């Protein structure tokens, strides 16, 4: 899919769909949105839909940062306290490492 060849309305619609899709627990989709539409939103000379695309890209970036913060916090907490949580820690674990924690 080459963005260059799409008309501007379709670019906007695609950006919007990616933005809305990211609300389904999909920060990766927001990341793709930011990276893919970054040039369209900030580097290209202005056109009518660019302002809206810019908004979507900014909001996707914001949502992405939020998700990264939440995930990092949760992973840090889990890694640090997993051994102390005992049974709950094991229940939550997908893989349990061998050896003494």
């Amino acid at each position, binding site marked *: *899919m*080459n963005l260059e*060849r*799409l*008309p501007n309305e*379709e670019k906007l619609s*695609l950006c919007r769909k990616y933005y809305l*899709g990211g609300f*389904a*627990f*999909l*920060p*990766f*989709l927001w990341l*793709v949105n930011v*990276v*893919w539409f970054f040039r369209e939103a900030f580097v290209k000379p202005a056109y009518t839909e660019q302002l809206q695309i810019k908004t979507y890209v900014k909001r996707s970036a914001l949502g992405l940062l939020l998700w990264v913060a939440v*995930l990092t916090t*949760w*992973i840090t907490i*889990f*890694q640090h306290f*997993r051994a102390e949580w005992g049974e709950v820690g094991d229940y*939550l*674990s*997908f*893989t*349990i*490492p*061998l*050896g003494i924690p």
Partner: protein
Amino acid sequence: MNASDSDEDFYNERTALVPSENPVVPSYRPDSDLTPENCTPTKVPGVSRRAGPAAPDGGGGSDQEVDADDEELTLKYGAKHVIMLFIPVTLCMVVVVATIKSVSFYTEKTDQQLIYTPFTENTPSVGRRLLNSVLNTIIMISVIVVMTIFLVILYKYRCYKFIHGWLILSSLMLLFWFSFMYLGEVFKTYNLAVDYPTVGVIIWNFGAVGMICIHWKGPLQLQQAYLILISALMALVFIKYLPEWSAWVILGAISVYDLVAVLSPKGPLRMLVETAQERNEPIFPALIYSSAMVWTVGMASPMDAQRSEHGSDEEAEQSGGRGEPERRQPRTFPEDDVEEDSEFIRDQSVRAHQSERRLQQCVCVCVCVCVCVCVCVCVGGVKLGLGDFIFYSVLVGKAAATGGDCNTTLACFVAILIGLCLTLLLLAIFKKALPALPISITFGLVFYFSTDFLVQPFMDNLAAHQFYI
């Protein structure tokens, strides 16, 4: 690169790759323009002066130029294609080899076999083992042939929804279930503690974005990356579950099948490609790796309508009728004194048993992805079927898993790339869909067996005797 203003102007697969050149315009000479107007006696020399610079650009050696240009176009066209396909094939093989070398799960001996290869290779006699591997190959190849023919029939009768649905199902399984397994094995190998919520988020994101990129719209590089990862996952499954000798015989047999299916007039793959070209539709994207996007303006809308129509057909054909019952292996549970322990062990083995059964079902569905084993030209680039990626990676992966050391792996890798190069050269000459497996797999097999049995002992002997050549 000069972009021509009109897209329809002489736009085919060759000009799409080679930069178009605007016709050379004779330079503006104000004095030659003015002289004929100012002084009539000098009109003739003025005209001839203007005609002078134009002559080398125009008629003269145009015939020779056209021929030279033609050859140049062919060469540039072929060379660009080679580069465009080397990188993904290399990446796929690198992923497979890296996994094989680091994650021991995929090289562990298992008694569990795919239902397509029911004959076991655990027999002591060589003859029996050879017979079993040949029988396994016959079954596997006939499964693939039946699936391909089913696919072609469904495609011809325009049962696009069915194919579309099946392809979505198989890519769903590959993207979610197989990557979940893969991630689990990687974490176990590196002894990491990971929790279910994190894994859930990772797999959900990976899978969902993959489905969006492959089946809907997404950045081209991301779609290519996902197709490479899917091929690598499928190749890893094959490497794990195909018995040793069966794998090599299957590789040989499938390249012969590829030759027949793509080149013979009634071959299923040839009919598939021709039907797709007649109807001016692309072969479904989940089956084929495209090196460049199709550059037509407003491509998105009509493509989507077409794709949603017949995507399902192709995939469903390839997946075929996968409703066979899974194999059950009887397990005996050791009786322990401690009740809890035996419960725990039973739970673990039941869970392992269930996951293996689920795996069998998934593989049933996903073998469809291997069906497309041809390379063809499209506007803007060249397309290589995912089946080619899978079987190349199976060859290199098996060489890495069972071969002596990295010499064998490297030799196979080089052999496959040479074969791919030659195939693309032939593609540039013949300009129609060609089988991509035969040359590469033949070279790969020859290199593997000769390196493993001839070169390796030779090098070992030289090193042992400290003899450097």
